[in-house]
């Protein structure tokens, strides 16, 4: 008789909850805030499997377990058995078996390592199920069950404790601003009591791409705006959102909102970060409990606005370029054309990828995946799709408007010794300002 080997299931646990408590917390927090919309989506899957065709993890591996809707299987099962309109029927006839802690542990990899919440599957689903939003909801359950990949948990917890997941504490931020201002001879206002525009940063930029901080300052100064950074609200990344802790998500969001309110900002500019846009632009007011008293713009939208009103004039860049759409900003955020307006102003010859815009492939690092090193091997497989897509355009400059994507590209570039380097739209703009334009 041949021996079968069961592949090792990789999962992490936080806390010392019993298995039964983990299951209960997972499901309780999954259905918490479960409204009509999520429920109708949970009721609608016909198991056609078409969502697999849209998923980069499936596309790269052809492993059926990466079928997006399958990533929700225990939660679908529990919904039908415990919460749906016919729960009693499913429970009594045992048509849906009870979800176990072991299943949730197995699904940790599917929910966190192999989903960037990019939402491409949601565009494919013939029933119109927004699978990505249900994955986020399932992550709420997983977080409270103490079943988050440890590295992702650690940065999330650090963000909660220190105010920044990558150690860009207010003190560190202040020091870096001072250093960057001196080093680059640029005025970087910090903690102004009043300002029209509040700029924010991603900790990836603060720690890894500080040129973006300088670029932001150069552009704001160039436009002659009354602007500031503030140490009480600068960190735009939100690992509470990515890992599934709504309370910590709210805490990070409120810091930004309160800082903007404190300085009377009319506009809050979000950095080149995808999920920051979702967290504040689309979820911020709901966390705040009322409409925000200021506008929220992604950096690409801000730049496009000033290009379009004629105040931002740029030197022409005689190169071919292609644009990688950050999923949360473009596909799921709606700011798809803004970066293209800016690229046109830069005069580049834009070679669009195929597919592009709303159906562009994700870089593979969003949704917290790039912060979870055990997913690296899988992420690199997925990244091949992106390399092929970009190589096919023949463009000299890959450009994006998300530091998390950029980090994923830089890592992929190093891993594959790829000859393409990702560029920041913001930094390209800052490098090509027409100085006499005011």
């Amino acid at each position, binding site marked *: 008789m041949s021996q079968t080997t069961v592949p090792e299931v990789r999962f992490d646990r936080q806390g010392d909850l019993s298995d039964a408590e983990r299951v209960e917390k997972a499901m309780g927090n999954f259905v918490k*805030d*479960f*409204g*009509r*919309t999520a*429920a*109708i*989506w949970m*009721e*609608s899957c*016909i*198991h*056609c*499997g*078409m969502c*697999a*065709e*849209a998923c980069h993890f499936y596309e790269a591996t*052809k492993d*059926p*377990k990466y*079928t997006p*809707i*399958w990533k929700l*299987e225990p939660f679908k099962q529990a919904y039908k058995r415990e919460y749906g*309109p*016919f729960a009693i*029927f499913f429970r009594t006839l045992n*048509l849906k078996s009870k979800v176990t802690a072991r299943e949730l542990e197995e699904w940790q990899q599917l929910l966190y390592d192999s989903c960037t919440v990019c939402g491409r599957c*949601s*565009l*494919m*689903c*013939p*029933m*119109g*199920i*927004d699978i990505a939003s249900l994955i986020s909801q399932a992550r709420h359950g997983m977080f409270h069950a103490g079943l988050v990949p440890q590295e992702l948990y650690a940065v999330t917890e650090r963000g909660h404790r220190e105010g920044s997941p990558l150690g860009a504490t207010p003190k560190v931020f202040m020091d870096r601003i001072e250093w960057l201002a001196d080093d680059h001879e640029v005025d970087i206002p910090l903690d102004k009591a009043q300002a029209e525009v509040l700029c924010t940063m991603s900790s990836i930029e603060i720690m890894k791409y500080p040129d973006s901080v300088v670029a932001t300052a150069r552009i704001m100064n160039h436009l002659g705006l009354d602007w500031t950074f503030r140490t009480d609200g600068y960190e735009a990344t939100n690992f509470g959102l990515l890992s599934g802790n709504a309370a910590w998500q709210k805490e990070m969001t409120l810091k930004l909102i309160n800082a903007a309110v404190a300085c009377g900002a009319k506009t809050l500019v979000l950095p080149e970060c995808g999920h920051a846009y979702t967290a504040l*632009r*689309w*979820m*911020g*007011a*709901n966390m*705040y*409990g*009322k*409409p*925000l008293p200021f*506008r*929220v713009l992604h950096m690409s939208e801000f730049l496009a606005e000033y290009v379009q009103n004629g105040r931002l004039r740029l030197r022409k860049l005689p190169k071919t370029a292609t644009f990688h759409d950050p999923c949360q900003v473009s*596909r*799921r*955020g*709606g700011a*798809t054309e803004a970066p293209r307006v800016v690229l046109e102003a830069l005069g580049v010859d834009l070679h669009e990828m*195929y*597919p592009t815009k*709303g*159906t562009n492939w994700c870089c593979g690092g969003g949704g917290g995946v790039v912060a979870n090193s055990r997913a690296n091997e899988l992420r690199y497989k997925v990244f091949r799709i992106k390399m092929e897509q970009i190589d096919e355009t023949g463009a000299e400059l890959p450009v994006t408007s998300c530091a998390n994507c950029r980090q994923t590209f830089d890592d992929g570039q190093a891993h594959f010794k790829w000859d393409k380097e990702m560029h920041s739209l913001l930094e390209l703009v800052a490098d090509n300002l027409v100085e006499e334009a005011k």
Partner: protein
Amino acid sequence: MSEMTLLEFARGPALTWAVSIFVAGVLWRLVGVLLLRTKKDLSEPRNAATWKGLRLIALRSWPRREFLGGTVFGEVMGYTFHVGFLVALFFLVPHVLFFESVFEGLLGFDFSDVFGFAWPTLPTGVITFLSAVSLAALVAVLIHRLTNPVKRLISNFDDYLSWLLTAAPLATGMLAYAHAGGARYETLLAVHILAVQALMIWFPFGKLMHAFTIFAARGAQGMIFERKGASL
């Protein structure tokens, strides 16, 4: 039970029970979901006319060009069996007579008087051909479900039962029409009617409910995404 009794059973108490379970079940499931609260979205909309997102109900009826490659088989087969099934259901003469009698018996009016035209029908030969095509497409999707690794993994009891209960009315209807196997017509007809009733009884509990939820599910995604200006 004699054969006529079986037909009487199918046309009598079985029909009453099947229709009751169907109606009550569909309402229970829809109301159970649609009555759930929903939070007001306080974010500043990019597009205030969110209702325009309802166009997704029509748009999502065919995949975007980028997604077509891997899904074309499912789409074509899906449409084939749905169209064949619905045409047979609504345009076969005996079915039309039944629906007209329901209008008259339950609602108390004559269909053609009220709407100004007679309920259209198609020749039985056309319906038989479409039913056969539909059945062939159903067999194809079943084979696909059993052999495609993705579909095999995600399939469950509901998928196979729903398949069986969808195929059975088509198959038994064709057998009844053909007076197949030397069996009495009344028996074949009774079996056909009971097959339809089995479909109606399972309908509210499983995935067949997508016939109703598809509109709400697509509409919800459309309106939420339209509000953000996100891709539809």
